[in-house]
């Protein structure tokens, strides 16, 4: 690895963590306003340092381990959730040159790493020795298996159209042609929406947050966790959603491509916008039931994804799609 690659990967990690920290604040503020509330106001100007206060609070708390828990797995699971979520970020290009890992198989690797995030979640649920956590883990596994399929299928649409599995090449292709969501719109837009739905399910977000449905399963897999362990699981969800938004904007919204200014700015802007929309969605909908979630995945998303892949393959053979 060259020095430049090291620097850019550090820069990307810093960007992701900073955006996540302020994403926390932004989400709480946004949610507050949507609920006719003020949101955080006390810590710092307009509550800007609330994430830091949250972090300090979590760090101070005593880590409690249930007596019959599987200690090793119980300790290991929360940091791993955050680690896997952050690993994906390393693959996302933030600029034509600013891609820490510019590899040819970016798309399958991103989906694989995203799917890996399931394993620590399951570890956490299983190790807690708690029935609610176990139910949550079971739901997480089932959900992740189901939604991995449409995620792969919809991610294949830009791969087929751009003719490459390299994320940077896909963005470069969109830079030369159009953003995928703009043209071909009948392929890009549905694929984008399906990708977002599948990504939300992978990241366990409302309306698909059944693994930690707090009104049913208390807190799902994180029921027994306290302090910074809980903090890791909590952080992983945010990073997951944020990175998911980044991947979606890379694949469909043109990534770092913008009419003017530095590419990093455009990437961060698009990601944050998508992130906000996802949270807007989150604070507007109720959650689905586990079986409805499965039905949605297998009866609608998978067939639709297959159809889109076929259509994309056909489209590349037409005179307009070459």
């Amino acid at each position: 690895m060259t020095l430049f690659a090291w620097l850019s990967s550090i820069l990307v990690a810093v960007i992701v963590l900073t955006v996540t920290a302020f994403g926390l604040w932004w989400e709480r503020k946004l949610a507050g306003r949507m609920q006719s509330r003020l949101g955080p106001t006390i810590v710092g100007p307009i509550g800007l340092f609330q994430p830091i206060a949250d972090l300090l609070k979590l760090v101070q708390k005593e880590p409690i381990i249930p007596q019959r828990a599987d200690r090793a797995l119980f300790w290991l699971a929360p940091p791993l959730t955050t680690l896997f979520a952050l690993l994906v970020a390393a693959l996302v290009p933030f600029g034509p040159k600013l891609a820490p890992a510019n590899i040819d198989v970016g798309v399958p690797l991103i989906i694989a790493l995203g799917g890996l995030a399931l394993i620590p979640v399951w570890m956490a649920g299983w190790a807690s020795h708690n029935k609610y956590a176990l139910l949550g883990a079971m739901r997480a596994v089932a959900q992740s298996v189901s939604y991995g399929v449409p995620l792969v299928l919809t991610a294949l649409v830009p791969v087929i159209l751009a003719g490459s599995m390299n994320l940077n090449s896909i963005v470069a292709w969109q830079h030369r042609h159009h953003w995928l969501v703009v043209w071909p719109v009948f392929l890009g837009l549905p694929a984008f929406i399906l990708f977002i739905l599948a990504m939300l399910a992978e990241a366990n977000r409302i309306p698909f947050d059944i693994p930690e449905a707090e009104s049913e399963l208390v807190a799902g897999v994180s029921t027994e966790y306290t302090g910074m362990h809980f903090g890791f699981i909590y952080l992983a969800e945010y990073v997951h959603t944020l990175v998911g938004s980044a991947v979606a904007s890379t694949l469909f919204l043109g990534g770092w491509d913008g009419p003017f200014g530095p590419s990093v700015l455009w990437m961060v802007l698009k990601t944050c916008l998508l992130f906000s929309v996802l949270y807007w969605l989150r604070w507007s909908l109720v959650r689905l039931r586990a079986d409805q979630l499965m039905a949605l995945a297998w009866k609608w998303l998978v067939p639709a994804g297959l159809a889109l892949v076929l259509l994309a393959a056909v489209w590349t053979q037409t005179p307009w799609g070459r």
Partner: protein
Amino acid sequence: MGYLLDGLKSMWTTALNAIRPPFTQEFPKVLRPHPERYHTSFALLHDETGDEACTGCGACARICPSQVITVKLGKRESAITQKKRGYADDFTLDLTACLVCELCVQVCPTDAIVMLKVPELPGFRREDLVLSMPRLYENEKSKPLGWSNATKLMAMQDPKAGAAKPEPSKETAPAPAAAGAAS
């Protein structure tokens, strides 16, 4: 497609609410306006001569549903009017178990006990919420007094108030819209 449409409608509704001014306020900085009849804590009053109004009759202690009031009756000469009358030697009101039902205020024959219009009632120790007699008299001077006292409450509940008008029989009951709005 219907799901997407409904989801968009929901998002529109939340966005609409996001534009509206927030309903909540920052509690310690902004206090909500209290209506005139708002009441929380208690105070004991002095009468117009400047003497303690409480005669120690114990009516409030007897009516209290949760029995939080204890009154010790004493008889002595008044320092102001020089007449021998009843006094409360000791008066304690335990707010921790108080129901804030206002019955003690209503039954007081001398309008001695009233409630306060203070915005909140915090206390970090049990002693903060047990009102002894000195504290009750202190409250009279230092805190805003509430609206109600026994005279006002009794006047409001007077069975003869407005009795001049005969009650219309059920057959000739006026239509709801015909009668004027109450004031």
